[in-house]
């Protein structure tokens, strides 16, 4: 039993024929992300066959590349899904990711003195995660205790994390010396890129947390009706703080992965990905008003963004069209949601 079944299921109605259009809209809205993905894949497949006589979807190299393309926006999007379901938003994740990437690189280099790359790795990962708790906690306190609107609070933190990350990196990238981090970041296990496998593990954890635990249930309740949640005795304050820490932690994972993949930490690592991650969540069916959204939806959303970006390059379209395409998909996605909500009333 997954919660998303309950949440995305078209709303049943005891209605006559005039409700038929509404019913179709509901089905369309519930599965719009899957539909988009299918249409995109089909389009690129036909395009590749007609223009190059090759295949797009059935080329393992493409699949692997898209999977790797998906990792960063998806990781940012996982935490963002929780935040958006609660009715908030976290704009700081892009630079929290950069901050973690830079700190991971610095600490990894510093820990080289212990002469054991395993220890270096552990210390660096712990530092990368640990440093992200700071912006996450501050975001949470600002929003839960000081009633700062999430958009403003995390926008402020976006600036702070950005500045601190660039200061720590002295305005440049921080190269990593030594092998283990790079080996993990670029290696494969059983033919699957390590970073993709690690991301899948994180996805499973986040999906479980959101759809199967009391914490996840409370996040939906907070997003659905915060007064009901309060009256039911749910600790909205602590849950909210935990949300923003969780969001910062998934961003930190993206930062650590970045440093592992490129053997260098960069403050701007997450900058171009922030909007992609929010796009992934929204395309995946989450409402910016809170109360709905799923991890599976966000995965599909992130795949859609990645397929657009990679696919357009693959079929040799000017890369700037990808911004247009992603933008159009976001707008259509939100429109379908609005129309369906309107029809319900």
């Amino acid at each position: 039993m997954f919660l998303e079944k309950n949440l995305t299921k078209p709303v049943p109605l005891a209605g006559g024929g005039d409700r038929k259009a509404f019913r179709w809209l509901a089905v369309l809205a519930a599965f719009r992300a899957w539909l988009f993905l299918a249409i995109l894949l089909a389009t690129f497949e036909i395009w590749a066959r007609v223009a190059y006589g090759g295949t797009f979807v059935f080329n393992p190299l493409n699949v692997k590349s898209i999977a790797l393309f998906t990792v960063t926006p998806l990781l940012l999007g996982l935490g963002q899904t929780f935040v958006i379901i609660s009715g908030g938003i976290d704009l700081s994740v892009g630079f929290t990711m950069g901050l973690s990437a830079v700190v991971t690189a610095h600490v990894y280099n510093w820990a080289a003195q212990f002469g054991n790359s395993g220890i270096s790795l552990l210390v660096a990962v712990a530092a990368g995660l640990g440093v992200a708790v700071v912006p996450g906690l501050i975001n949470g306190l600002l929003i839960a205790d000081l009633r700062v609107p999430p958009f403003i609070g995390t926008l402020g933190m976006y600036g702070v994390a950005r500045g601190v990350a660039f200061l720590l990196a002295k305005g440049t990238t921080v190269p990593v010396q030594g092998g283990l981090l790079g080996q993990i970041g670029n290696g494969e296990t059983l033919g699957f890129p390590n970073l993709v496998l690690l991301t899948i593990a994180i996805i499973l954890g986040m999906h479980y947390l959101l759809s199967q635990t009391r914490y996840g249930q409370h996040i939906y309740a907070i997003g659905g009706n915060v007064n009901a949640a309060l009256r039911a005795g749910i600790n909205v304050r602590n849950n909210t703080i935990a949300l923003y820490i969780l969001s910062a932690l998934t961003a930190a994972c993206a930062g650590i992965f970045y440093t592992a993949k490129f053997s260098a930490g960069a403050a701007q690592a997450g900058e171009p990905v922030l909007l992609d991650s929010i796009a992934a969540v929204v395309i995946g069916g989450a409402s910016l008003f809170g109360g709905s959204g799923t991890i599976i939806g966000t995965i599909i959303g992130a795949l859609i963004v990645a397929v657009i970006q990679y696919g357009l390059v693959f079929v040799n379209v000017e890369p700037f069209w990808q911004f247009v395409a992603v933008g159009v998909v976001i707008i259509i996605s939100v429109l379908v949601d609005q129309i369906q909500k309107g029809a319900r009333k």
Partner: protein
Amino acid sequence: MNASNKDPLLDLEHISKRFGGLQALKDVSLTLYPGEVLALAGDNGAGKSTLIKTISGVHKPDTGTIKYCGKVIHLETPHQARDAGIETIYQDLAIADNLDVGGNVFLGRETVKRIFGLPFVDRRGMRQEALETLKDLDIHIQHPESPLRSLSGGQRQSVAIGRAIHWKARVLIMDEPTAALGVPEQRKVMEIIEKLKKSGVGVIFISHNLNDIFQVSDRILVLRRGEKVGERLISQTNHDEVVRLMVAG
């Protein structure tokens, strides 16, 4: 109904409450018996809200005592009141309409199943238990797996009542429960109140609609400017007298 030979569920004695210069309640006493519906009537600002908020732990009285099941209690928070079995159904429905029936009835008190030691929210179990409670109140939900936003206002109201009953509320405070509902749904809520009465719950019922009050209540207590200006058995009064008490004392 002859309630006087039972022990009262709730006994408020000489409650007063002042907000700055406003005397919101002045020496109000109230008794509620099990299986009884007590209506609170009064014009806007008469003190109805303050009175029920005092009973439900939102406000602390300046003077006076509250006895619940024979014992003096001091309610510090609405939470304590609810844990004790005093539940309020608010006009603005305290339900999360993106969750299903089970999720709402068990909101904040979700049950979990363990699978290999990992806790999993027991959606099916919660839904079944919730539906059973609702069935006892003669409430039937057509699509129990759907989020509550797909239900009518009356059905959502019923779920809120069902939640209170599921958690063994003994005193149920209903603030304008029919205000936002259509006529058939109002009737349904009235039926539910009759059911609650039979099961021994004490109901405090606030309504602007005297017809509703006369239909389900056993007694009526009229407030005016924070004071109790009259208390009548429904069987021994009529609309005119109640209105006279409300406006003129």
